[in-house]
């Protein structure tokens, strides 16, 4: 009799254990490489306060309530397991610099061509967020440069509008000569500073 009871209890405990295991498939945290190859890391903390750091690309932390187990995966396996995630990641933001001839809104011919590239790239950005920031060099009064930088930004916005691009999430700013790409003193004509920065998101 006590023997039978003992068997039943053990069976019951074994069953509980099985159920427990089934519901406790561990979470998987996978570190991906940085696009520019710089090192990176993440620290994973379990409920019970265990901490593990993963710092190699495609290293995986398997985290359950009781423990953290580390394993090494690779690009192919991660790409296969998470193919939908790879496809659905939105395009990374991109910036372009367009340069202007002296003191006006005339683009240099190289930048005219680049603007065409920007337009083509926009198809990779559904519901595009476009930030246009105008700049000037240090020739002329600050107030005039503020005005000119904004005119440049608005000029680019107008061109994009005429090309049928969705400009509902566009913003234009003039920064005058505050953010020089090439640092210069006052009154210096510098093509690299006469520019509009376009950021696509």
């Amino acid at each position: 009799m006590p023997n039978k009871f003992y068997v039943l209890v053990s069976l019951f405990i074994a069953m509980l254990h099985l159920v427990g295991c089934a519901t406790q498939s561990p979470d998987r945290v996978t570190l991906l490489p940085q696009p520019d190859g710089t090192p990176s890391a993440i620290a994973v903390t379990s409920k019970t306060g265990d901490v593990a750091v993963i710092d190699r690309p495609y290293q995986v932390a398997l985290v359950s309530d009781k423990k953290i187990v580390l394993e090494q995966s690779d690009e192919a396996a991660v790409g296969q397991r998470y193919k939908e995630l790879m496809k659905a990641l939105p395009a990374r933001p991109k910036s372009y610099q367009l340069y202007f001839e002296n003191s006006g809104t005339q683009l240099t011919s190289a930048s005219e061509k680049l603007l065409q590239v920007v337009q083509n790239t926009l198809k990779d950005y559904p519901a595009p967020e476009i930030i246009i920031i105008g700049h000037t060099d240090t020739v002329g009064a600050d107030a005039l440069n503020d005005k000119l930088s904004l005119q440049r930004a608005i000029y680019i916005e107008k061109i994009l509008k005429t090309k049928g691009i969705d400009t509902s999430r566009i913003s234009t700013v003039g920064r005058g000569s505050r953010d020089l790409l090439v640092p210069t003193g006052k009154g210096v004509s510098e093509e690299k500073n006469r520019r509009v920065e376009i950021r696509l998101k």
Partner: protein
Amino acid sequence: MNIINSNKIIFFISCAAILSFAGYASASESGIIKNTYGHVMIERGSSNFDAKVGDPVQEKDRISVIGYGSAGISMKDETLLSIGPNSSIVINTYAYNSVTREGQSATSVLKGSCRFVTGLIGRINPKAVKVTTQSTTIGIRGTEFIVEVPDAE
């Protein structure tokens, strides 16, 4: 007189710049749905609706991919997210100041898989970015990673 005038003009232009900068993004908008495949749903308060490209994502939203499909989201600080099949995430906290680039973000992965490319909030202050699941908290050091929470069965 002249100096006062030009100062006023600069002030005006700066204000206009800041306003137009903030222009399209309403205060409650944390991000934008950039792509959907299959059935993607947003639960906001007591309402829920099918997500489509261009829809804003807000703090407290629960975003789910029902069945086979996926979704891509871009947040204001340039954090990028993709959500896999049979997955649910919640944007618990999201605050971002585009002028100072300071902010706070906390995201939960309830089930399924989510890929993170952390953005400017994390670059300024990695501690300000939190990703959690039922059983784990993830602290970042400027990174890209995937979190998968298997279905409990």
